[in-house]
């Protein structure tokens, strides 16, 4: 029983990270249909920046995170402007190749800057707290809370405001969007900025409970793709719920089935779902 509770808690923590990463990917891949395989590498960069600012420049955790999010948001803008915008009218496969190039580039640059060594960011909230008899570090609780708040805010922004609709309108018919006065270039850049900022946020949150290294984003990218597609391309609630469910499935599956196959859970679930429902569980968002 205690084990179950502990695993659910662990699942929620990992789930917060998955959801944040998947949410960012939903914006670029689900909505703008840019298969950004470099997404997890933005997450890696976010983690490294926070780490560097804290360990070498003496920033406090939140300040470091804020700077890191800002820098990555700008990087997202640059990425859209320089790489993905020129490819807008080509097949999405082209954008995918470009994303792979960006991914290799980001990883190699990170390795040149920070070396091969695994880094670890010390959270200021290192203490262990007991919640209903379960031992957790304070940082994990903070992670759970901040992630949830941010996600709800973003969900409301995207689904309840006209600015949110403008993003989806741009993706569905760019000329139509131009005709109603939407600055589609700005929308695309904003979308990438939010997406990359979210990745940086997730990376900075996860750094204290995990390791920071150049290839830390590879696996999570693949999982995020699975989550985005399972949740219904472009559906924000789908990505959020999907992230948590996947992490719970992993931690429970890892406990009660076998930890060896944990990484496979996402893909087996996806394969099963699509075998029986070829167009996915959910319709695309409206």
């Amino acid at each position, binding site marked *: 029983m205690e084990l179950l509770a502990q695993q659910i808690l662990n699942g929620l923590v990992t789930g917060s990270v998955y959801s944040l990463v998947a949410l960012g990917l939903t914006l670029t891949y689900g909505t703008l249909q840019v298969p950004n395989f470099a997404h997890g590498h933005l997450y890696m960069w976010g983690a490294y920046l926070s780490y560097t600012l804290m360990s070498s420049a003496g920033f406090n955790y939140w300040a470091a995170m804020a700077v890191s999010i800002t820098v990555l948001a700008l990087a997202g803008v640059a990425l859209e402007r320089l790489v993905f915008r*020129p490819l807008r*009218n080509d*097949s*999405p*496969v082209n954008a995918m190749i470009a994303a792979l*190039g960006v991914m290799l*580039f980001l990883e190699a640059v990170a390795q040149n800057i920070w070396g091969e060594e695994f880094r670890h960011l010390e959270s200021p909230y290192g203490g262990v707290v007991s919640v209903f008899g379960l031992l957790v570090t304070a940082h994990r609780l903070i992670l759970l809370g901040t992630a949830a708040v941010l996600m709800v805010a973003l969900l409301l922004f995207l689904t309840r405001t006209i600015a949110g609709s403008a993003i989806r309108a741009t993706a*569905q018919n760019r000329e139509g969007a131009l005709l109603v006065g939407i600055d589609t270039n700005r929308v695309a850049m904003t979308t990438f900025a939010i997406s990359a900022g979210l990745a940086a946020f997730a990376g900075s949150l996860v750094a204290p409970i995990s390791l920071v290294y150049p290839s830390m984003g590879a696996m999570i990218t*693949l999982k995020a793709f699975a989550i985005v597609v399972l949740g219904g*391309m472009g559906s924000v609630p789908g990505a959020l719920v999907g992230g948590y469910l996947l992490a719970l499935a992993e931690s429970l599956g890892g406990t009660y089935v076998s930890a060896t196959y944990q990484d496979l859970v996402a893909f087996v679930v996806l394969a099963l779902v699509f075998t029986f429902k070829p167009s996915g569980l959910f319709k695309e968002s409206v």
Partner: protein
Amino acid sequence: MKYGAGAALAIAVVLPLVVPNAYYLEILTQAYVFAISACGLNVILGFAGQLSLAHAGFFGIGAYTVALLATKAGVTFWAGVPAGIALSAVIGFVVGSICLRSKGHYFAIFTMAVGLIINLIIQKWESLTHGHVGVIGIPGPGAIGPIHFESGIARSYLALVCLALTLVATTRLLRSPVGRTMVAVRESEPLAAAIGLDVMAAKRLAFTISAALAGLAGGLYAGFIGFLGPESSNIEMTFNTLLYVMVGGIGSVVGPVAGTFIVYGLSQVLQVLQHYQMVIFGLALVLLILFMPKGLAGVFRRPSTQPTPLAESASLRAGSSKKGDK
């Protein structure tokens, strides 16, 4: 075009004789092998318009078939390769039948999952595949009558012959009614169905052929390298093959071959840069795709007088999978 093909063939025939040493020969041979796999991916992606990310999985199936048959059952390379092709094709047929019911991005990510699962099965099924340790001591092709295949040159020619056959086959396919059907499906599924084309059958056929070619490439690879690990079927391998196809030019028959030589060659050349290798390689990819969005083949193709319309590029937009018309 005719002259171009002739010149390319002449170069390909002479190349193994003039390269300075065994290392170059090895690279050349591997490039031929990877090019076969790229041609396979081109059939499903370029002809039929379906982005399969399970491609390396089939490469791995072909490779492991040859490797395991040889090391565990003493089956020769010559019997193992056809077996590998057959197994890849059969599994490709089954997987295709299931995955192809999904469309666009869903299909791409579905096959990505399938590819990862195949790779993980190879990794984890240790009693059969030796997991991470891999299969060592895979015998290469044995002599056929007076022709021996021990030397790098002989193997290189063997790979070249296989590649040439692949090219002839895919060219004939593309220019036949069967290929036209695939292209029609790529352009518009509802229209293709309305004019009496069996959309599913066409896609499944393309998928099966692409799996078979990946299996052929994998089988050759296992026999030539003599060692096989699970990374032969991982997603990076799929991505690499995709790079070959896209840089070369999607849909054109020889594009993938040129792409393989450029990208694989580039990655070998850049090795000397050590730390900066991937920095440059990543940048090069982005620039290649930015400045040659249609690949090399696009550069040489006579430009259309009309710009491409902004219309949705049909097959990869999951959203356009709605039935019926409007």
